[in-house]
Each structure stands twice: as C-alpha cells, then as structure tokens.
C-alpha cells in the first residue's frame, strides 16, 4: 500500500497545484476588451442552430469593433466573446455558465441556443446577478419566473404560430377550423403548442390530432398517416430544424394533402434550398425577415445584413443569426447609456432599452421579453426550381399574398 499511497498523494497534490494556479480569473473588462461569455451548442442536436447563433454573435462583434467599438467614460472598448460548447445539453450548459462566471470572470452573458438551455442557464446568471441578453430562448415560462437579469430580444414562443391559426380561420370565413398538430417534446415547441391551444379556444377551432414527437426526431409518419385519414384544415408542426426537415420530407413522400401547413424553423433548416419545390406553400413563423424595413447604423437594413452575412458565411442568414447579432447591439447600447461597467448599472440600462435595430424594435417588458416586435409569417414560394421565403403576414410588410389552399399533390408538378 505504501507505494500506492505515495502515488495517490502525488496525484492529489499535482491536481491541487494545477487548480490553484488555475484559479486566477480574468477580469470582466480586460484592457480594451469587454469580455462576454456564452455557452453555445456546437455539437449535439442543436448544433446547426448553435452555429447560426454563433455566426450572428461573431458578425456583430466584428462589425461593432470595426466601427469604433463601445464608448464608456470616453474610452473605446471592443467586444470579445468566450465560447464553450454546451453539447445541446441543459446540464452541461448550467455547468458552463457557472464556469464562465466563476472561473473566467465573465460579468455579462450572451444566451445559448434554445429555450431549454436558456432555462438551465437563467437561474445561474440570476444567482450571480449577471446580465444576460439572450436571443434564442423564446419559451414563455422564461419570462414569468421574475428573472431580473434576463433580457430577450425575441418574441415569446407562444406567439409563433397563433397568427397562422387566425389566418386559417379568416380563410374559412371566420368559422373555426380543424387543427392537426405535432410538437417535439421540448420547452420551445411545447410553448408553441400552448399558443395554438389559446388560439384554438379563441377562434372556436377544434384540435383533432395532438401528437408529441420525440427529440432528435426523424420520423413522424404515424402522425401523417392520421392526418391523411382525418383531413384537418391546418397541420401545425414544430420541432426545431429537424422537425421542419422531417415534416417536409415525409409529407412529400406520403403525398399528404392538407390545405395549410404551418411550421417553425423553416429558414434555419434552409427548407427552400434543401427541399426545393417540395417545400412550396409551407407557412413559417419567423422572428425576422430580411425584407422588413427596420434599420440601424451598424448593419443598415435587413437586406444589407443578409448580403454581408452571405458574404461572410456563405448562406442566407436565418432569423436565429439576425436576433443573435441584435443581442450585441443591445449590449453596446446599454453599456454606452450606463456609461459604466457596473453590472447593476448595465442591468438598469438594459431595462430602459428602447431602440431600433435592423432586426426590429427592441423594448423589454417586465418579464424581460421583447414587446416591441411582432412575429411574422412567410410562405415558401417557387418560380421554376428557384424557391424563396416571401413574407405574407402581417400585412404591413407582406410582399406577397398568402396562397391558400395548398394544391393537392396530384395537381402539383
């Protein structure tokens, strides 16, 4: 045992030394840099959206830094972000938030991707009184917990597809419609579902199929078979990127005829590129679209943002990227108005935020959600083989008329 014990003692003391030398943490503001922290899903089921989010953050950091940075007390600072990979796992995200705050000394956080992960991180940031501007946690329950340091630039999840139901009812001559719905088992999609339930109640619509889809979904044939049998007026599907891709793939394979198909995450899934004509007529909820007429001095208009983003990353920005970029603009604005790095001063400045960005107006409600920006709906439309997303609601920005009902597969070329 003697030698073994020695080995053990050596091992323990080595670890102790390593840890102690590690503990020296960074400052929130290092030289000319303001350090922000973020746990992002670079691997796992949210990895594609995690990368959209990260690209959005990076794009804004570059742009703000290039255009002079953030001015606090007469001195110019630049943004810098420390990223960790949360593996799309809430447990990991909470642990990393702790790590960013305690070990890396981060005093300001940017949100992760998805509602579930934001729900896991919010208690941590709240505990340490760290202001977090998040752009990808839309679940309504985030905004009813009384969090004081959480600010979301997006509209809550339950608003995503409510408008779609209203549209369907309108097309049905004001009478209630029959709704079939399938939602992934996660915080975000379940909140979208709640929105639909509310809308159904309000409009006197009837929900005839109410299915749950597993996480990591890649098959929803069972739901679609039911849809074929009972012929609802509207089919609602929500399950992040994979949900959108799976739905379109299987609807076209099974030739499911439904007059209206409402979804989320069409642009993040690049539906119009990946599935082309098969995805035509799909109606999608979005936080943002490049054709909206908002403007700011960093990115110009939505169209200009889209162009720059395309140049930088090689694809059209989904709204996940746009809202993430907007989060940085909010931080910059708050720092400058607070004119201080005091966390509470920054937090108070965030509360008073009222600004326009290329992404939309931003003003935080008492729960921290953005109350100044409506959701929009777009529809995938094709000319020949070239498909794109056209805004159809609300009417203020609609570039196209809403096409209803979706022609039957037998009539589609």
């Amino acid at each position, binding site marked *: 045992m003697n030698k*073994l014990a020695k080995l053990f003692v050596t091992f323990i003391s080595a670890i102790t030394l390593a840890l102690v030398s590690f503990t020296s943490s960074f400052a929130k503001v290092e030289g000319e840099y303001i350090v922000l922290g973020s746990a992002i899903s670079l691997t796992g089921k949210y990895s594609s959206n995690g990368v959209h989010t990260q690209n959005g953050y990076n794009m804004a950091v570059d742009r703000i830094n290039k255009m002079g940075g953030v001015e606090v007390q007469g001195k110019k600072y630049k943004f810098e972000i420390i990223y960790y990979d949360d593996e799309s796992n*809430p447990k990991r995200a909470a*642990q990393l938030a702790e790590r960013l705050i305690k070990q890396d000394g981060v005093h300001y956080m940017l949100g992760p991707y998805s509602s579930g992960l934001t729900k896991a991180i919010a*208690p941590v940031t709240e505990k340490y009184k760290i202001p977090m501007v998040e752009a990808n946690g839309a679940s309504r329950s985030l905004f009813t917990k009384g969090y004081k340091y959480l600010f979301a630039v997006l509209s809550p999840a339950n608003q995503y597809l409510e408008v779609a139901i209203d549209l369907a009812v309108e097309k049905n001559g004001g009478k209630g419609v029959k709704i079939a719905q399938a939602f992934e088992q996660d915080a975000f999609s*379940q909140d979208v579902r709640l929105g639909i339930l509310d809308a159904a109640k309000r409009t006197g619509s009837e929900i005839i199929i109410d299915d749950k889809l*597993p996480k990591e979904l890649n098959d929803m044939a069972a739901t679609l078979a039911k849809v074929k049998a009972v012929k609802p007026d509207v089919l609602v599907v929500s399950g992040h990127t994979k949900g959108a891709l799976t739905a379109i793939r299987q609807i076209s394979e099974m030739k499911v005829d439904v007059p209206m198909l409402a979804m989320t995450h069409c642009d993040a899934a690049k539906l119009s590129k990946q599935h082309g004509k098969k995805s035509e007529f799909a109606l999608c909820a979005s936080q943002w679209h490049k054709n909206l007429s908002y403007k700011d001095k960093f990115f110009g208009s939505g169209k200009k943002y889209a162009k720059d983003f395309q140049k930088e990353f090689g694809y059209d920005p989904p709204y996940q990227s746009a809202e993430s970029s907007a989060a940085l603009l909010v931080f910059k604005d708050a720092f400058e108005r607070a004119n201080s790095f005091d966390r509470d001063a920054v937090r108070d400045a965030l509360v008073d935020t009222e600004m326009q960005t290329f992404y939309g107006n931003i003003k935080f409600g008492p729960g921290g959600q953005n109350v100044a920006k409506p959701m929009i709906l777009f529809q995938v439309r094709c000319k020949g083989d070239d498909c794109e997303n056209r805004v159809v609601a609300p009417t203020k920005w609609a570039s196209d008329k809403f096409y209803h009902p979706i022609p039957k597969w037998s009539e589609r070329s």
Partner: protein
Amino acid sequence: MEKVKQKDLILYSGLIILGLAAPYLFSAFKVQLTYLCVLIVLAMTWNLQGGEMGYNTFGNILFYGLGMYLTASVQVGMFFPLAEWTESGGEKTFVHTTAQYFQGIGVGLLVSAIIPAIIAGAIGYAILGLRGHYFAICTLGLGIAAGEIAGGIEIIGAGQGFTTPPFPAEIVDTEARGKFFYFLSFALLVGTFVFVKYIYGSRFKLILNAIRDNEDKAEAMGIQTMKYKIVGWMCSAFFCGLAGGIMGGLIGYIDSTDVAFDGREMGVFMVLMAILGGKGTLWGPVIGATLFHFFKEGLWTLILGWQYVALGVLIVVIVVYFPEGLMGWLREKYPEKFGEVIDDKDRKAQVELK
C-alpha cells in the same frame, strides 16, 4: 469491524480534510467538484453490478433520473400544488421560504433514496434472471423508456422540463448555494465510499464475485443468487437516487431525456469511468471518475467541436491498452502491492514452459 491500518488512516483523514477544505481552497471550482463527487458515486455504484457482480447494467441511470424527479417533486409538492408549479408556461410562481426549501430537499432526498431502491427491487425481481448481453440490452431499454415516459407526464413538466425551486433568496451569500450542494454531495460520496468499503470486507462481496465468476456453481453451492443480485442492485439504486436528487437541485432544471434519464451521457460515463479506473476494485472507480472528470473539464474546451472524437479515442486507448483499467494495470505491474504473492520459481517455470 476490522482494524484500520495506520497508513490507511492517514490517507483517509487526508482525503477527508482535502474534501472539506476544497470548496474554500478552490472556491471557483465548487460546481465542478460537486460534479466530481456525484460522478464518483455513480461509478462506484455501477462497479457493484458491472465490476463485482458481472452484470453490465445501463439501467442505473433510471434510478438517478428517478431520484432527480422525486426530490424536486417532493420539494415542491410538500408546500405547493405540484401541477400548478410545472403547469405549462409557469404563469404562477411560488417562492419557497428558507425553511421550506431545506425541509423540502431533506424529505425529497429521503424519498429519492428509498423509492428507487424499492423500484430496483421490483424490476430486479423481473429482469435479473437475464444474463450477459440480454441483461445489458434490457437495462438500456429501461433508461430510454423512462426518459420517454417522463417526457409525457404533465405533472412533472413533460417536455417543458421541470424548474426546481431556486435557492432561497433570503440567503444573500452567492457562495452559499455552491457550498450547500458541494457538502451534500461530499457527504454522499463519503457515505457511499464507507458503504462500499464495508461491502468489500464482507461475505456479500464474495458472493457477488461468485455470481460473476460462475453463477451456476454459486447456485449449486447453495447461494440464493437471485436474492443477492436484487439486494446488490437495490444498494446501487439507493445511492444513485440520492446522487440524482442532489444533481437536480444543483442544475436547477430537469429535462426528461437530457438531464434526468441521460443515458447517452451520464449512463455511459459511469460505465466508462469504472472501466477506466479498473472495475472490480475499490479505488478504481474513484480514480477513473477523477481522471475522467479532469480530462473532460480540462481538455473539452480546448478542442471545441472535437471533444467527442477525443472521448472516442480515449475509450479505444483504454480498451486496447488498459483493458483491466488503471488499477488492473497497476496490479499486474506491482502485484505485491496488492497483497498478491507471486512465486518467482513458479513464474520462471511457466516462462520456460512457453
């Protein structure tokens, strides 16, 4: 109780002092240290089945997840209507007073130890008759099924997840929460270690080994193997449930498949850690878990995006070069340190024979 050797005494008291001082020495690392304690507990309890009994279970995650949900549910349910707490959207928010919080978590942990143990007994009775791969696959199914089922039960939040009660706001010290969970998990670790060490000195362990080495012979010798297998599993479930309960409170948000019944991560990690350290040894899982945790925390972020590839390589390296784990490797190298007597003449004779 056999007398503890003096050297061991020094080692143990040193470790306990280190454990107690750790949250003050490495204040910033409290959460990681808490994770470490929980990981060690999971690895040690897995080792009871996988290492000592020869039953490779992937089902221990079931008890971990159960413990998590049970603790949180009891903690909320004791004082407020649980359904309204978890209700979709969470319009209503209840606030625990300091006393309620600690009473709740105390009772919750008690429940989270007992119920998983009972369930382990019931399930064990049904499936511990299976052997080898059949048992492994069956338990793998248990964990996955539990995740899907939990994701459909509205009262515990279903797909929305379950936000556990926040640490009482009246305690202003931001370090208090970290310390509380650290000491809780450290106490659990010490408890588990003492228990497992006790088992290692008992006839019970020999019976488990007999089951591993040849179950039929053990049966033939008059050992009621089924009884011992079930009791063994219940012991593991007891500690796994507690570990889950502590983790639920620490993470603050329970998701059915990603946090609670997280077979893909925790479920695999506990097996990996035990094998890395050396299954079938007392210290193996402890060392394995510690190394694994350090590897994970230290390297993970340096190789963003590639961490699972690195993990894969690590698994291959372990399996190829240390099939018996680190302790097994040490044992082969320095058998005399493990109290094994080797007759040099005999060894030479064997070499000559070859």
